[in-house]
């Protein structure tokens, strides 16, 4: 009898751990903070400003015509679905890896023209070095690939990681997804399990 109990306990232990392993800790932001600027030029410490909430964070640059709009569109769909499910414990973050071009004013234009719901969605830019160190710990790469001057204006495009990441309430990255082709049902499911 005691043996059965022991076996059950072991089985339960294995099961709980196996399920927990769906979301290994990819990175812990516990001792890190990145002072970024939102679209209103206000300083915000990312990710600690959202501590206690689940964060869906995507990486973009506003001059990106193809991949990043798919990423932000996917974030928009996730945001709408979570609203329908009445899950209010999630914050969205779109972080620019082109802060030189993506000033808060440019981010405001981007939000206005695409009509993003900024209720629980913050667009971030900031100091290049700070952004670079955030990219580094997030293992996101953005390499300028093409620089051209059009009508005197510098236009840079990037080879970049296509990424949306899921951060838990304790500021730990728990899962990465391809931003432009993310499975919406999968991340909704993951958010509910987290």
């Amino acid at each position: 009898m005691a043996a059965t109990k022991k076996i059950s306990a072991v089985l339960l232990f294995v099961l709980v751990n196996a399920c927990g392993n769906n979301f290994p800790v990819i990175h812990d932001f516990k001792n890190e903070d990145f002072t970024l600027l939102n679209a209103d030029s206000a300083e915000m410490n990312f990710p600690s400003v959202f501590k206690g909430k689940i964060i869906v964070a995507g990486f973009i640059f506003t001059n990106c015509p193809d991949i990043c709009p798919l990423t932000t569109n996917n974030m928009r769909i996730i945001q709408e679905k979570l609203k329908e499910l009445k899950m209010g414990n999630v914050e969205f973050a779109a972080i620019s890896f082109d802060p030189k071009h993506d000033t808060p004013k440019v981010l405001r234009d981007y939000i206005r023209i695409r009509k993003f719901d900024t209720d629980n969605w913050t667009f971030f830019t900031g100091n290049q070095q700070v952004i670079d160190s955030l990219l580094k710990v997030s293992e996101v790469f953005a390499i300028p690939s093409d620089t051209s001057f059009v009508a005197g204006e510098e236009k840079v495009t990037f080879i970049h990681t296509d990424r949306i990441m899921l951060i838990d309430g304790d500021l730990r990255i728990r899962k990465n997804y391809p931003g432009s082709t993310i499975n919406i049902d999968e991340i909704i499911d993951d958010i509910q399990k987290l």
Partner: protein
Amino acid sequence: MKKIILLIITAIIFVGCNSIEKKEAKISKEIEIKNPWIRSAAAGMNTALFFDLKNNSEADDSLVSVESDAAELIQIHETIKAPNGMMQMKEIGKVSVRKGTEMKFKPMGKHIMFILLHEDLPAGDSVEVKFNFSKAKSMSQKVVVKDFTK
């Protein structure tokens, strides 16, 4: 008498022009731009135009350039996968479309890149775009602005 001659000349010009117009319409059907849309973007930004290019003609053809007053520079681009889950795009020259086939310009693939928009392009607006081919006659088309397709 002079009046009658003038009338006849006018009639000839009118009929003649009409038939030329009809002929142009027939020629332009050889290449079709189907379901074109351009993604909304603010003045100064870049955006992309997508569509299906159908070649109904008896000859292979290619799209060589696209013109519009909406942007400072317009190029034919393709988004491609780079190593380690990275993405990039590059300018490609002309895009050939074989006779009787269709070529899709779609997100994550080929697109027409509009660089440095002159004005805001909010969803619902439209822009006039001219497509130039190596064989078929150039064709102008109104393209609707959309935020996203879904």
